[in-house]
């Protein structure tokens, strides 16, 4: 059974704290993604990675950074958390394929609250 896991389901942090969200996939996928999900806005892509140590900005990268030191692990970092980063964060992975027609597998999400 394929699996994408995220380190925490719920997280509460204070403004200014450094926050790490971890994602691990066991499917040997090349591509990994971080999204945030907000009511009425759907999923917005923050960053993605198509290989180890490779990363590219998505649509809303400001205030975030990422790290991919190993193929199975993709970390999202909030250098200094702010209240407007309170959201649901979803990690996903997908194998490399032609034309983007491969299924994207999602983790269960981390609901982050910044006080």
């Amino acid at each position, binding site marked *: 059974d394929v699996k*994408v896991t995220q380190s925490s389901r719920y997280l509460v942090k204070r403004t200014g704290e450094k926050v790490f969200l971890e994602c691990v996939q066991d499917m040997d996928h090349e591509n990994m993604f971080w999204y945030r999900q907000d009511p009425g806005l759907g999923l917005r*892509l923050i960053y993605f990675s198509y290989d180890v140590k490779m990363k*590219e900005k998505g649509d809303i990268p400001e205030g975030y950074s990422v790290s991919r030191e190993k193929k199975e692990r993709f970390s999202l970092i909030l250098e200094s958390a702010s209240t407007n980063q309170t959201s649901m964060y*979803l990690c996903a992975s997908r194998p*490399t394929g032609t034309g983007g027609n491969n299924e994207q597998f999602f983790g*269960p999400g981390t609901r982050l609250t910044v006080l």
Partner: protein
Amino acid sequence: AQSVTQLDSQVPVFEEAPVELRCNYSSSVSVYLFWYVQYPNQGLQLLLKYLSGSTLVESINGFEAEFNKSQTSFHLRKPSVHISDTAEYFCAVSDPAGYSSASKIIFGSGTRLSIRP
């Protein structure tokens, strides 16, 4: 640039009634289309997808969607819903000309389907 519009943010229906969740997209190139479902407190999972060929695609739990190129739509339908279908549904389009080999998927804003007994 590609975009996806889900016209209804919430759709309440009675159990065993039919339902249609609307999705329109814009793109200047050929696309792949997807519907994902998110059950309460879970991540998203693929419901069905259109890549090519028959314009009508079906899922294992009775949903179907029809690709209509002239109307740039990919509406999701089910003839008779169950309580277990309560979830949020996301329409998505892939970007074949995406970055490197990752080919981004662009999601709509979601439609929350609530089933009343």
